[in-house]
């Protein structure tokens, strides 16, 4: 089914579109994470697992290495640290920690496979 969609005219166009716009796609995903951490109030599993799903798809689609996941993890650690210094264990610090948790998990699984 998925193969069929991908082999179709629009499917091929979409694949091509995503392939040439890799930095944009990854930036959007990461901006989504930052927005969830810093600007959106409240916790939503749908949002977290939705964005994570997108990232896992991107990992598989772009054949991303664990290195990138850990680098993003480093950025999240930085965000979490700044938040921790200024706001303590606030909602945004804890959210950044949750994202870091998942990025470490994904990175470790990726590296295990590499």
């Amino acid at each position, binding site marked *: 089914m998925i193969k069929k969609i991908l082999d179709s005219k629009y499917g091929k166009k979409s694949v091509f579109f995503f392939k040439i716009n890799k930095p944009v796609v990854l930036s959007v995903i990461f901006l989504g994470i930052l927005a969830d951490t810093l600007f959106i109030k409240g916790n939503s599993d749908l949002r977290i*697992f939705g964005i994570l799903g997108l990232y896992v798809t991107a990992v598989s689609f772009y054949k991303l290495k664990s290195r990138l996941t850990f680098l993003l993890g480093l950025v999240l650690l930085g965000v979490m640290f700044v938040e921790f210094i200024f706001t303590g264990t606030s909602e945004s610090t804890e959210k950044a*920690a949750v994202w870091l*948790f998942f990025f470490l998990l994904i990175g470790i699984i990726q590296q295990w496979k590499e």
Partner: protein
Amino acid sequence: MKISKFKLPVIFICVALFVIPFFWLKPGEMDLGGDSGRLYFYDPQALLKSNSLYSIDPEGIGNVESIIYILPFLILTSILKIILHSPYIIISLFNILKLTVGFITIYAIIKELLEIKDRHYEEIRELAAIIGGLFYIFSPMFIGNFDRALLIHDQVFLNPLIFYLLLKYLLTSKGKYLWFTLIITFIFAHNFSWLSVPPLFAFYPLSLLFLLLYTTFIRRKKLPWKAIFAGLLIFVGLHSFHLIPAIISLFDPGSNTNTRVFNREDITHQLDYFYGVLPIASISKNIFFYSDLKQFGLLSVLVPLLIISGLLFNTKNLPVLGRGKKTLLLTGIFFLIVLFLLSAKITNLGVNFYAWMFLYVPGFSMFRNFIGQWQFVFYFFYVIFFGQALFFVLSKLSKKYVVVLSAIAGLSLVLSGWPFINGSLVNKVHFQSNGVKYAIVMDPKYEKTLSYIKSLPEDAKILTLPFTDCCYQVIHGTNNGAYVGLSTISFLSGKKDFSGYIKIAPFSEIFLKLARERDYDSIKRMLGLLNIQYIFYNADPRIYDTTFPGYPYQYVRHYLPADQKTYGKFVKNLGGQKVFEKGPYRIYELDNKDLLPHFYTALAVRPYEQTSDYWDGKKEPFFVGDKDLNKRVGYIDKNTCNNIFSVNSCDEVISYGKNFLPKIYFEKINPTRYRLKINGAKDPYILVFSESFHKNWKIISADTESQQKKTVKNYFDGKVTEGVHSNSFLDESTFYTWGKKAIANDRHFRVNGYANAWNITPQDTGGKENYELIVEMTGQRIFYVSLALSLIVFLGCLLWGVISLVKGSWSDIIRRSND
């Protein structure tokens, strides 16, 4: 012997760790308080003799409760006390044990997990392992629980030690590692007992799984399954003295253990507790290695930063052998699992999954205080994850940067733990006190008082005043320190003591109410019902008035006298006769006409309606306002009465003729066995035993008659005589009652809100009028059997060790002679 230059820093740190704890307390000082009580450092022999061998709580009404698991540890501390004499040295030595073994085993684990390619990386591996070891001993969980440490705090060194020994065993298959593991678990059996189930189940399943995966998939070793199974059997055998009673209790419907594990309603309460703790859980705090003591807040990011950097470098040109890179990843997975279990807050789904485990995994409710239970495991995996990651980072840097980074990491860890190193975290100031420290130099006057209490001939119970909120006793030392902990009277003198609100249950609430109303008659009645014959009053103003304005008297102070001056009057009004005084310590013998001895025959049974259905502390005050002159009664709640006697007779007082009741003589063999002589039992009578009700208290008819010994006290014009008591754990009569049928077992019931009573008829004793009975806590028999089993296995284990040692030495000699 040549010492490698790499080993010098480790030796230096170990020497420092050996010296530092001696400066935490001054010579003569002791840190003995806390919820677990640390009196085993002060007088282990007394604790060993009077309490640890018996399944009866030495405090209050004598609930069935066992601290048998502490037995091997008490034997060890007793030996140390005989050799060293000084509790100060013993306490310091145990602190040293925790520090050095904690450091050295973490160091050794990290080294073992990092299989380096060549000796070029040896120095870096040493550095990573040392910093890992320092990280562990200065982690918040390690240093945050050192003061008034609970028994289970031993896990800080036992967890890495057992992990290391098992790791070495699985990698080398050398029996000595397994042997040491088994012997250590036996000595510190309290950390493998029912008391320690939450930390035990938090650490061992995960770490054993890690070890199995690591050995099988990373080191490609074949697991010695037969030896593992044998080791497991030996472990069960060694620990049977506390495991068998705990397992029996687990499957005994209605027992505390059974309720905790299987009762749905109780589990729901535990779930509420979990939701109560949840808001204070934090993922970020744990990742940042955050501690309230941290002086170097900005450096707290160093540990996670180095971990992620290590993961980034864990790709190519690795300094480790074969599948070594996967060790870091495997550790990382376990770290994340424990982080999830410690924080419980990773997404709403995570919280729901956690709650689901409470409901559907039997026993999971033990993790209701999940932060406290998982933090030790978390820091263990965090440390070995960090140590490995640091190695990968350092291996990519030039020597200059290695030195700088190691110095920053090492120093930040050591300096952030400075309040721990200088001892201010160990010898703290008591909560809500005015500058009173934990460490106490015991007052010789109090020691004399304790000796006097020990020498009291009666099997008497004691009320300790000032009364505390929970179950504590406060004693001020000759320095500016005070002991706030479990009752020293109960645990060291062998006399049951009521020192606080919880211990006086089921009369906790009513006692406070009567105290506020200054209803001395009713208080005396209550003390009589509880078999309290003495009051120990500590008039020292330094333990109550201004020095301890809050804890541990916060709640009870609203009801009881507000200062020592009024307390003195309060004690006087209870009608005591001062029989001892040494400094501020006074003992009053109650001239109490209401006193009911430990055993007595009731002249009347008074049914009462139990209108309130509260928890233990708020039972119906049935004795208040009972103006009847005849106090030799047994109060029975109506439902029980209807089951034991006919329904109609429970509408009024059931009386027994004074002249038809037998004379009784009783003496204690040990806290679980009493011998009674009954004379002139022509009619049915009610025998009351003023000890907490339990179905395992049974009466067994003794066919033989022993000689009546000396008399200590007479009650009710000689109708009840108290003999000379002993404390004999094992004698010729210990097994006499085994296999014999208990009498009046179906007429065993609760009286006076807590005590045991039996309705004994002439048929129970074959129509005899004069006979001897043994009142026995039959649950103790399991302990005798399981202790014997443990001893046999322990001796077998020692033999195995000796044989292996001899064989090993012999092989060495042959090998050398061949060379």
